[in-house]
């Protein structure tokens, strides 16, 4: 039953050409400072300062626009981006409020105009925030030290893979320990970073309880086991209650255990990685801790570990010395070195610290409770929509902050798929939902995540739109299959972009492939 008044909506359409198609010969968007005559007198012509063999001879095919033309173009493109302008329940990404005050702070020169090589004495502010936030995360995880070098969650998983390497190498066991175990429900970055670091990957499939059995784990753990990399709960809202035993089994075999806390939002203040026996965990500051997504970073995968693994952390490490000031310390000989230059996306660490301080410990508990409650609130209504079922419906316990649903029945009945519905919902101003990571084992999946940001009215509106689109699927399936209709552009033609003759990742390539000059 539709609860909301459905608004009229149409996305802005600017029919905006490519920037390379705009402007005219000789226009300029910036003027450079005039070179002082005394400088020219000393150095002569700048062209002569470049070795002959290295002078650019080819013309640069960049656009030529005035400053306003550039501004207007990118403003138009921002308006042709729906993002969080209305309601986005994009599952696994924990869409939450990104407090504006943080943007105000991180664009101040004392954050933005800082070079990482500056003397520590001039970096005390940034170092203090990093150190304070490290301590807050220690409290939330029970672990002993956090670093922020990883440029995202996947990069933090890569830190784990690298620390696994260095840890076993330091004991002379690396050649023998070359397997990392994960599950089919762990984010793809876990097996992928393990493999990129040189490990063989063993992936345990789900079993009837919604997670792999302890027996399955035992059957693959051996003296070859280097590490276990898992999330819990997974992104269908299922919690593996045997996780402590899992960690014990892997530890007994000599492996390390890494907790991918991508789905921390629902269990904040209830679960601590160290209490479950894990050696390390990762938090995503751009998700759980209020940092903005930026369309895909700059992000931070905060990586924390027990004291046993601290010597392996990537450096430099932020420490407080006895005098009370902060310093950057070399990480030492056992350190994995670097996974990325410098010590992390500092502005996002600042944002996360600020968000966490605004929440306080009780606020974090409230956010977790509200997230899980909101998911269960949504489930009641979503499951009342004909054609939608719950993924793994035989598992009747309450799901945590996400539930994965299936549109399989609706697809069988109408031919309309989950991707069609994902394309249609934005016509009502609703950002497309998350489907599922690979591998898909629930037919026609979709995965909303309510989080703590959105109001009851927002959640209801989202469900109303879903329900309307499901009704459309029955009454006018073509309308849904040909969606979207109210967006800046129509549905893609479905051209095979894996064909080298067809893909074009740059304007140059496109011009050559599609616009042969006659």
């Amino acid at each position, binding site marked *: 039953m539709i609860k909301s008044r459905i608004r009229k909506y149409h996305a802005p359409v600017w029919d905006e050409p490519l920037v390379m198609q705009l402007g005219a010969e000789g226009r300029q968007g910036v003027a450079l400072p005039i070179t002082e005559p005394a400088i020219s007198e000393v150095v002569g012509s700048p062209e002569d300062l470049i070795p002959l063999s290295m002078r650019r001879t080819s013309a640069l095919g960049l656009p030529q626009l005035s400053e306003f033309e550039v501004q207007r173009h990118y403003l138009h493109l921002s308006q042709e981006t729906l993002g969080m302008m209305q309601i986005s329940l994009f599952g696994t990404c924990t869409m939450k409020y990104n407090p504006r005050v943080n943007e105000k702070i991180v664009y101040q020169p004392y954050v933005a105009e*800082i*070079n990482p090589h*500056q003397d520590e004495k001039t970096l*005390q502010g940034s170092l203090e925030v990093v150190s304070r936030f490290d301590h807050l995360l220690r409290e939330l995880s029970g672990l002993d030290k956090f670093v922020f070098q990883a440029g995202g969650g*996947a990069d933090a998983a890569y830190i784990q893979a690298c620390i696994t390497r260095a840890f076993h190498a330091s004991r002379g066991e690396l050649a023998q320990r070359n397997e990392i175990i994960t599950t089919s429900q762990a984010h793809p970055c876990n097996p992928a970073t393990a493999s990129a670091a040189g490990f063989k990957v063993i992936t345990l499939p789900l079993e009837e309880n919604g997670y792999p059995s302890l027996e399955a784990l035992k059957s693959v753990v051996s003296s070859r086991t280097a590490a276990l990399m898992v999330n819990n709960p997974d992104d269908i809202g299922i919690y593996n209650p045997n996780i402590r035993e899992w960690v014990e089994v892997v530890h007994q075999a000599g492996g390390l255990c890494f907790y991918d806390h991508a789905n921390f939002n629902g269990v904040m203040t209830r679960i601590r990685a160290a209490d479950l026996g894990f050696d390390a965990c990762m938090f995503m500051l751009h998700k759980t801790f209020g940092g903005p997504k930026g369309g895909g970073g700059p992000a931070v995968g905060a990586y924390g570990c027990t004291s046993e693994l601290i010597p392996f952390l990537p450096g430099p490490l932020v420490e407080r010395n006895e005098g009370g000031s902060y310093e950057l310390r070399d990480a030492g000989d056992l350190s994995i070195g670097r996974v990325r230059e410098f010590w992390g996306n500092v502005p996002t660490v600042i944002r996360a610290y600020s968000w966490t301080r605004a929440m306080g410990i009780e606020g974090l508990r409230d956010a977790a409770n509200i997230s899980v409650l909101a998911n269960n609130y949504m489930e009641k209504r979503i499951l009342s929509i004909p054609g939608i079922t719950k993924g793994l419906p035989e598992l009747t316990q309450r799901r945590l902050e996400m539930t994965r649903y299936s549109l399989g029945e609706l697809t069988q009945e109408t031919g309309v798929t989950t991707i069609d519905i994902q394309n249609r919902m934005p016509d009502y101003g609703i950002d497309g939902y998350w489907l599922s990571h690979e591998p898909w084992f629930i037919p026609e999946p979709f995965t909303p995540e309510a989080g703590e940001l959105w109001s009851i009215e927002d959640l209801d509106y989202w469900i109303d739109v879903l329900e309307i689109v499901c009704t459309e699927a029955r009454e006018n399936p073509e309308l849904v299959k040909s969606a979207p209709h109210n967006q800046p552009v129509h549905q893609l033609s479905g051209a095979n972009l894996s064909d080298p003759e067809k893909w074009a990742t740059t304007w140059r390539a496109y011009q050559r492939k599609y616009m042969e000059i006659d």
Partner: protein
Amino acid sequence: MTKIGSKVPTAHPFMANSAPESYKEMLRVAEVGDIDELFEQIPAEHLYTGEWNFPEPLKSEASLYRHVSGILKQNISCEDYLNFLGAGCWQHYVPAICDEMVTRTEFLTSVWGTPSSDHGRNQVWFEFASQIGELVGMEFVGLPLYSFGTAGGHAIRMASRMNKRHKVLIPRSMDPERLAVLKTYCGYAELDGFIEIVQVEVDPQSGRLDLRDLESKIDHEVTAVYFDNPNYLGVIEKEARAICDLAHKFGVEAIVGVDPISLGVLASPAEYGADIVVGTTQPLGVHMNCGGGVGGFIATRDEERYAREYPTLQVSLTDTIEQGEMAFALTLFEQSSYGSREDGNDWTGNSVYLWAVANATYMSLMGPSGFKSIGHSILERSHYAALKIAEIPKLSVPWRTDFFKEFVVNFDATHKTVAEVNTALMTHKIFGGKDLSEDFPELGQSALYSVTEIHTQEDLDTLVAALEEVTK
């Protein structure tokens, strides 16, 4: 220490449903008596029930702003002091429009919408790749990577997958920070996919890669030669063509790293034979952010053998069901870790896609004439500084010609360490160049100075006077 239980929340500005009435309404509809029921999946012995050592919340924005900015104001920024530090993270002017775009809520908060609903952002990404492609002279460009070093690491691994070889040649002049990342990416001998790093010497006379040493080390077992141009020490590798030709003679991939801000005046790597181009994106409209501004890219010719090895995501221009309408879609998604987990090429995830918005804006503002002007400006100012510094008694600039933006200053004759000089410069409100003495002991007490378009003649004269005074 605080003990928390589960109770009805009090309203918080970040959470609509923290209003008690909304919260209770959800409990009612979801048929939940006690909130703890919802956590029935979690065994009791997993739950943390202890006390919390957590500071009091700062729910008031005014209090929060005062607290956080109060801590950060202890920093001294490169606007407070005159800065000559670069070394992988450079101070360029960031046009106001770049900051406007990356703080637009649409770009700032978007995630993964559909190709139609996030069309605008996807177009920006395509314009980012297209303009990078113009600068480096390549047709296939992926979405940005975490950094210059990670781009280099992935590029080496691409080469190794392509020619099935496991040794990479890298000049001694490589940025130590970047080299540390490359080492991580090249792996361990005990495991699969290991790539051995072999160092090529630098000619002490020129600061360039030693071609003869390269000749002696290159063979058919080498997967790639990777060098930066200009190199970390600022020197332009003017024999780049010869390096690339030599690589090709042995079936070796030539990987070249660039600072794109140089490419309005320097030849594009494609012009001298690069196969894979990597580089930094930070100079293109992104603040240093204490190193948090860094980003990288990979670009190649549009050939299938390269395209199939990209670890990144990339957007392609395509069409829609409406005649003549253009749109953007991910291409080669199935070879990414999202598409194929451990069977994909390395891995990808969140990256620095927001910075691509700043980069695209910056490149559009600059255009061909802007890139030329800024290249000239940096050349003129950095050479002026180098010449003036070289005139200071006891200071020397070993490589006085053929450099871009950065140059080495040696202090050996002063019998002072770079650390001492830099400490003294701070009393003049100057951040001196990056101390090289630990990473390049063969250069003695040397520092890497970075001079860009932001430095006026007066700034440079101030530096020269201060250097003269502190090295007396």
